[in-house]
């Protein structure tokens, strides 16, 4: 087993994608911090990472909506990462909710909850963690964006709007902290076969979490900015973005 040289903090460590990415990172020898609300569950996943890969893995309580707690959370994570004997903390932003457009329209409080989770909570926790990343001389931030944020569709434009907002936030965040060695990659993800998409009808080009995580891991090693994942979504979204409004509006997407 090679020495542990980095720790990945998975924000939303109980998400399907977060779990799959944690497996990939641990397989490569990284330590893992799983952050989320359901600590008992996270601890089960952490035990699995320790057993399968022999890496340090720990669960940490985190709620995206508890903004006041984010700074303390960031400090706690820094301490935990240092406990792993190195100072390289990287982040995967993998929490988010996606109630349907219809549910959001029927229940404005639910709509607000989505915006607060996907945008406010994300921006807040990344902001709180920025000093930690800068303090260690940089780090990698990978975020789960979505192709839904590239063009608003009738079926999920509020969700899409949260991902578009996240994308703009990440651009500025990258620019702001680049000088300090912080590198940001926004994954413009197509559908992945997760708990989030399980209730939906079959989606096109749906990726398995393991395949998606393997690609995300590769991209996280070398790229920054934005990248479509799986890669097929780059041409597909280019085409979708090019459809004129009057045609687009007639498609019930």
């Amino acid at each position: 087993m090679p020495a542990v040289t980095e720790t990945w903090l998975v924000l939303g460590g109980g998400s399907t994608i977060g779990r799959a990415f944690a497996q990939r990172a641990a397989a490569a020898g990284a330590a893992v911090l799983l952050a989320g609300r359901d600590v008992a569950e996270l601890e089960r996943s952490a035990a699995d990472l320790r057993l399968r890969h022999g890496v340090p893995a720990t669960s940490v309580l985190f709620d995206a909506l508890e903004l006041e707690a984010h700074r303390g959370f960031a400090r706690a994570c820094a301490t935990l990462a240092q406990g792993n004997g190195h100072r390289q903390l990287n982040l995967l932003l993998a929490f988010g909710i996606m109630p349907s457009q219809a549910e959001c329209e029927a229940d404005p409080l639910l709509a607000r909850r989505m915006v607060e989770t996907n945008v406010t909570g994300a921006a807040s926790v990344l902001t709180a963690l920025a000093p930690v990343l800068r303090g260690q001389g940089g780090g990698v931030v990978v975020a789960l964006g979505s192709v839904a944020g590239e063009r608003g569709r009738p079926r999920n434009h509020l969700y899409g709007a949260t991902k578009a907002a996240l994308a703009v936030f990440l651009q500025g965040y990258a620019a702001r902290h680049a000088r300090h060695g912080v590198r940001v990659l926004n994954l413009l993800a197509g559908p992945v076969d997760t708990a989030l998409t399980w209730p939906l009808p079959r989606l096109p080009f749906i990726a398995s979490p393991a395949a998606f995580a393997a690609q995300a891991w590769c991209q996280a090693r070398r790229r920054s900015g934005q990248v479509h994942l799986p890669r097929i979504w780059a041409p597909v979204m280019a085409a979708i973005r090019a459809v004129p409004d009057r045609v687009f509006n007639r498609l019930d997407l």
Partner: protein
Amino acid sequence: MNLVLPRLNLHAASDVAWRSVALRGWGRLGSAPCQAARPERLREVADAVTSINGRNIIAHGAGRSYGDAALNGGGAAVLTARLDRMLGFDAATGVLVAEPGVTFADVIRVFLPQGFLPPTPPGTAFATLGGAVANDVHGKNQHVAGCLGDHVAWLDLLLADGSTRRLSPTQDAPAFHATIGGIGLTGIITAMALRLLRVPSNAMRVRRRRVGGLDEYLDAFRAARGATWSVGWVDALAGGAALGRGVLETAEHAAESVAIPAAGTRSMPFDVPGLLLNPLSIRAFNAAYWRRVPARGEERTVHANRFLFPLDGIGGWNRLYGARGFHQFQCVLPEAEAPRGLRRLLEEVGRAGAASFLAVLKWMGRPGLGMLSFAQPGFTLALDMPARPDSRALLLRLERITRDHGGRLYLAKDSALSPQGMAEMYPRLEAFQQVRARLDPRGRFSSDMSRRLGLG
């Protein structure tokens, strides 16, 4: 190892997400439309079971059972694939605590390098531990190691009312013995403690030799009783004096490990048209396979996976049998009846021209622990048969012969057993039904198989 912080937010019970799916058995005989939940956390299993509004429900693992054991047409299913975490391991005792969706492949990937194998690996590593307990599966070491249930220290079983009970030989033993081999009908196993098998290396020394006919085969198995692993392939198309000829494989653990074979698998991307699998092509394949083994036998050292899971290298091989699918028939006959019974079975299959590549013979030692465990001392024969209009009639005749000789059919493979046959072959069925009535008074756990067999 949790970071201790005050609980900020009580986690709200999640709504269970259901989706319409069409589940199939490995034999692809048909598909069973049902509502499926795929929990990713423990709590969601109970949420699923308690939110089905009177519909019945069954657990579904990797879907490697051939028939309808894990299907529930018109009802609900809990897919356990995403509950796949290993929760603890004690290297001193070899006890692994794991969720039900962990597969044999997972266990081997992690623990074979540390010198452990799953205790009774079935012929495919893609099976889940939960599904394997529910069929009390056996491996090529059955005559030495028994069945999987013999190596389970305890199980956590989620009951119809959403509560969970820990079961073991000393904690509600009847429920433990009903759940082992209980084809999912007592509840959903949410965790288990399994004693792994300590091995000296990742490799096995495999001896293969030709056997000319049935009686010679049975003798050869008995003579090989000292072997740790043994299994036989039978050319089910050979008749006359060659009836029951085949290749016997025995294996011992090698002292030294070998390099791990490349991960890549070939896969079968489409259904093979039925035409390709005609008796002539199968006959030619089988004869060639038999001759390939030199008359004096051969010995090779291979990675354990190669010996234990020869078919796993060909992904989706079950599509070989075309869109209509196939039946697998597996029975076990008591030792004294085996010579006559196996002969009659092979003759019957030969007459119908129904057999195929994969016929497997194995000698079994002690019976399984479970009330519906398949294993009993004697010989077990398994064969694949492409589905044809006359298959069910043939399967009924094979059932008849099995009953005549005091044998039983394996539910993991079954798609055709009759309720009468079930009652006769499984003498502890009544005890099983009593435990079920106690654990699940409203009969929530039910499957296509349980209804077919008249078990409710």
